[in-house]
């Protein structure tokens, strides 16, 4: 006699189960207690054992069908027993559950007047707040606990990896700025005589087809001249020792697209203005072409940074360790000065700012150095001294 296989009720609140697969084909024999099919409830997937031994017949539900519990899904026949027409009737599986009907979303957020007021005050976008009130209504407390959200996501930034020169200078500048106690001194210089001297030198250079003397080149010469007289500015700090350096090698900061680089004019104190001009021009050109050799940037004992060509009037620079000082030079601009006679005169004025490592350079020392430097800039004939 045919034994029906029914969809078991596995849980108290279970109403249906889904057929996952049949483990026996129609017509195959199965022993009582052997797994016959796999079903899935909303909680578990489980093997259903054959309720009796027999031949599987009249399978009424296919995999993926959702069947109400206690419904007959197949029969087990005794050997030789024939399936009856009723057995062949296909079970009517339940239609798949309709997609959960959600009320059409209103464009407006449900929120209490108090929540709206708070959102206005705190610049919170109500749409982004999860409401804890009835029907998901946003309450004032929900706004209070919600992070302040920007109206729209910030546009993605263009990402440039920090590498090469920029990475090296970033690391060195940060280490210097954090590790070296910087102290700054600014002085104004009347550049009238300096400009005259430079004009005169350039007139000679033109006649001799020699390199053009830039402000920077002549400044390097003057700085080297002043450093000769103030060796502490041309030193380095090594542990507990201040080493006054035997050479005066003036670095010139050059801005490149890929970062800041400081080629060095070796022995600036021993070179003529013309030699320095040639060297500076060559270094700057090589730097711009990316052809600097390691030796070109090594051994600097002091650095000069001139942003005058860019119109900067005054700025401070970060010391380039192991050096102990850097000179930041601005543009030469006409400015009103009070002459020694007490008259207001218009003169070409340059502002230079020395940044020094205060562990080595005291204020008085820096002042003497700057005064000496101003002296030579205002009276370039002293370079002949």
């Amino acid at each position, binding site marked *: 006699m045919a034994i029906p296989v029914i969809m078991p009720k596995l849980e108290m609140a279970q109403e249906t189960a889904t057929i996952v697969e049949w483990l026996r084909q129609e017509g195959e024999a199965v022993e009582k207690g052997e797994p016959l099919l796999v079903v899935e409830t909303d909680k578990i997937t489980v093997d259903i054992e054959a309720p009796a031994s027999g031949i599987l017949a009249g399978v009424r539900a296919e995999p993926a069908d959702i069947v109400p519990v206690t419904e007959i899904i197949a029969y087990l026949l005794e050997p030789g027993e024939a399936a009856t027409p009723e057995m062949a009737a296909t079970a009517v599986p339940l239609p798949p559950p309709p997609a959960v009907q959600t009320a059409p979303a209103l464009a407006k957020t449900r929120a209490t*007047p*108090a*929540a709206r007021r708070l959102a206005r005050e705190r610049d919170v976008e109500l749409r982004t707040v999860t409401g804890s009130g009835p029907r998901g209504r946003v309450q004032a407390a929900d706004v209070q606990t919600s992070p302040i959200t920007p109206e729209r996501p910030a546009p993605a930034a263009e990402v440039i990896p920090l590498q090469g020169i920029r990475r090296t200078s970033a690391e060195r500048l940060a280490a210097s700025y954090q590790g070296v106690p910087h102290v700054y001194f600014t002085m104004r210089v009347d550049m009238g005589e300096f400009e005259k001297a430079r004009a005169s030198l350039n007139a000679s250079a033109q006649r001799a087809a020699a390199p053009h003397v830039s402000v920077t080149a002549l400044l390097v010469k003057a700085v080297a001249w002043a450093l000769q007289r103030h060796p502490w500015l041309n030193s380095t700090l090594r542990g507990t020792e201040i080493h006054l350096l035997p050479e005066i090698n003036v670095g010139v900061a050059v801005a490149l697209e890929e970062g800041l680089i400081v080629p060095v004019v070796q022995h600036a104190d021993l070179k003529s203005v013309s030699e320095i001009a040639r060297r500076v021009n060559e270094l700057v050109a090589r730097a711009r072409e990316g052809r600097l050799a390691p030796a070109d940037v090594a051994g600097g004992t002091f650095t000069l940074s001139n942003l005058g060509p860019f119109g900067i009037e005054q700025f401070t620079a970060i010391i380039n360790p192991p050096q102990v000082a850097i000179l930041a030079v601005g543009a030469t601009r006409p400015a009103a000065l009070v002459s020694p006679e007490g008259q207001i005169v218009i003169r070409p004025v340059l502002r230079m700012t020395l940044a020094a490592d205060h562990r080595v350079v005291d204020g008085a020392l820096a002042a003497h150095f700057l005064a000496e430097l101003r002296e030579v800039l205002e009276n370039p004939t002293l370079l002949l001294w």
Partner: protein
Amino acid sequence: MREITYSEALREALRQEMQRDERVFIIGEDVGIYGGAFGVTRGLFKEFGEERVIDTPISELGIAGAITGAALTGMRPVGEIMFMDFMTLASEQLVNQAAKIRFMFGGNATLPFVMRTPAGSGTGAAAQHSQSLENWFVHIPGLKVVMPSTPYDAKGLLIASIRDDNPVIFIEHKLLYKIKGPVPEEPYTIPLSTSEVKRSGQDLTVVATSVMVKRSLEAAAQLAAEGIEVEVVDPRTLKPLDAEPIIRSVMKTGRVLIVHEACKTGGYGGELAALIAESEAFDYLEAPIVRLAGRDMPIPYNRTLEYHAVPQVENIVAKARELAQGRI
């Protein structure tokens, strides 16, 4: 302080004002020898005589016309309508005459009268003796409407009403007559148009009138045991209303339940709700403004049905709890 009943407080107010000002007199049905249907004027006939405590025929329109005319001639009458339901009969004089005269005479006439009347259900007096018709009069410019909820307020507001130069509809409650409370012996006034916070709380504001103030305070005491602190505000004068304490309270709590006995539709609660929604309290609301009021039906005679026709303490507790817990 000594405690007396609401009814005694009203009688004391009447007696003290009649002693103070001989223009004050009482007129109504059975107010004299019988002492009033609810006994408020008991003993005053004996004390002040039939000229100052006047029994009338059964004509509410006559009482209303008499106090209107007397007030116009300079008297300060206190009329009594036995049940508020019968204010319908007095309405012509009150609504079409008394309310208009001061305006129509360009302020040259005053009508310093009080019309006292008991409203409300709860006594098994059925549909024609149980109504709360205050909002009919609230709607009429020129009438003041006062509704005391405690013995203290009853005395102070009645004296203030008698001394007011405008027609005052003074609505008492049948169930409040017997309740006791502290009342000073000496005469005092509570200025009309002063709402009062009867209990402080921060979770929810209940604005209630008349006997619903008492029920709301009982409800608040129950809710306090659950940790819900209810603020109960009593307008006391429905018109002109002192809205400020109500608005301030709603701004504090963000939730408001309005409770009155009168039918919900067209009731005073609608006016209060609109007023709150129009005020700056709007921006502080954390839930819809909720009204709990009498059902839109005549008060049934059957005591069980009567009980369920108007808000009771348990209804106020349930609704206030729902509102305070953010379920509305």
